[in-house]
């Protein structure tokens, strides 16, 4: 289970600037139970975007966008609608956005921020994909997460350490920023490399206050409240 929340609508509209048509993808898994990307939210998003002047070529809610095979099979009947869109708006966690961006040769915009769950991780195993940073950057990086794909979690681009496309830490590990570069190039989005990204807000990477409460904390609270 992963928790996500919708990004502010203005931020999403900013991602869609210069684009006329969008295909909306939702997720029947965690995003549905988070109330950020299930069938209800996809319908709401469709209406809001149409009001904002965007053409919605189609929508689809798939069970578990974090699984690439399910993304591909789920979109099988929607090929024309996806092809007709300038981009896909993916209403789910950071893992799902990355799975769609890796599976479909279309620009994929994140509609949600994945927030800290206090430990557990989502599906699409193999490597870490999402640190639940609460400030999803996937729109700037071609749908590959710089926080997990770059060993240093750099937001401003590659460091000088890579050799032959591999990270200085191990010849086994790809340079995350070279993956991002190649993805941006494939999707004709290299201009994204010029966008300045503010330092991360690390307070959003922490578990939410209510999740930091321990039983001891609860006991102290009840004590103070005279219960």
């Amino acid at each position, binding site marked *: 289970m992963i928790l996500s929340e919708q990004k502010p609508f203005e931020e999403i509209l900013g991602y869609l600037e210069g684009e006329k048509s969008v295909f909306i993808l939702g997720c029947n898994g965690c995003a549905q139970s988070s109330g950020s990307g299930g069938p209800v939210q996809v319908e709401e998003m469709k209406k809001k975007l149409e009001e904002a002047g965007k053409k919605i070529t189609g929508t689809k809610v798939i069970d578990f966008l974090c699984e690439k095979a399910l993304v591909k099979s789920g979109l099988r009947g929607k090929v024309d609608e996806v092809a007709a869109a300038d981009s896909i708006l993916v209403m789910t966690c950071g893992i799902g956005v990355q799975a769609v961006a890796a599976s479909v040769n279309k620009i994929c915009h994140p509609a949600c921020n994945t927030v800290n769950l206090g430990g557990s991780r989502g599906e699409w195993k193999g490597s870490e994909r999402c640190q639940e940073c609460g400030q999803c950057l996937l729109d700037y990086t071609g749908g590959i997460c710089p926080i997990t794909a770059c060993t240093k979690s750099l937001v401003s*681009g590659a460091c000088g350490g890579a050799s032959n496309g591999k990270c200085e830490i191990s010849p086994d590990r790809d340079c995350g920023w070279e993956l991002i570069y190649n993805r941006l190039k494939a999707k004709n989005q290299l201009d994204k490399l010029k966008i300045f990204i503010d*330092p991360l807000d690390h307070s959003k990477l922490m578990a939410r206050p209510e999740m930091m409460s321990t039983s001891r904390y609860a006991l102290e609270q009840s004590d103070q409240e005279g219960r």
Partner: protein
Amino acid sequence: MSLQSKLESGKFAITCEVGPLKGTDITEVEENAELLKDKVDAANVTDQQSSVMRLGSLVTSSIILKKGLEPIYQVVCRDRNRIALQSDLLSAWVMGIRNVLSITGDLPQLGDHPAAKAVYDLDSVTLLQTIKTLNDGHDLAGNELQGKPAFFPGAVVKVESDTEASMELQVAKLERKIAAGARFIQTQAVYDAGIFGKFMKRVEKFKVPILAGIIPLRSPAAARFMNKNVSGVRVPDELIEKMENVPKEDRVQTGIEIAADIIKQVKPLCQGVHIMAIGQEKRVPDIIQAAGL
């Protein structure tokens, strides 16, 4: 003349490197400062280089400044968060330090404390932005400073990369660094003036002074080591052969001659050289003399 006035008036500048050692003995740092102070415009003081713990770059910058050698205070983002970085920058200004070089920093796993927590709260670009913010009289949270610095910030770049992606990312990041306030650039070691010339053509539009990095070769083995392990450094085979073909006792001298030769070739292409002698600081004056600077 300060490094800033020299570069801003379009003159050719020479910088070198002073590496703090592990421990409290500052004899060598002071000797090197004494030796280099009238030979170079400024000296970089490395900050926990290669993730190996040493005496700090802030205090070492202050030591060489007192000895009469202008420091370029190197700051890496690996070991401190934005609170400590901003505080250290303010301290540096109060101590009389004017030049700051912003670096992301190697991973701790490559150094002598591999279990250390890597910070990277900021990176080389956002640290430059931070310096600009401090220069404007505010901290990163937007609070007003009581007394503000006027740092001369710099950054680094690799001129050579082994993949297209890496090269394009370097140029894109250089552009970001300059947009974030970098006013001088030092490069990774250059051994091929042809490749350096091509790089300079690509980045001349940025109109920021660039100092070519020079590392004098010590031995063929050291050259091969760099080719294998240092990203962005490629010593051509003919230079390695040249080192191999001289008797062992002459190799240091040959290394100096090769360095001087590269300096002569890159001089018309850029606005300065940055000589990284790595433990051979005492030979820097010989290199400068051999290059006719």
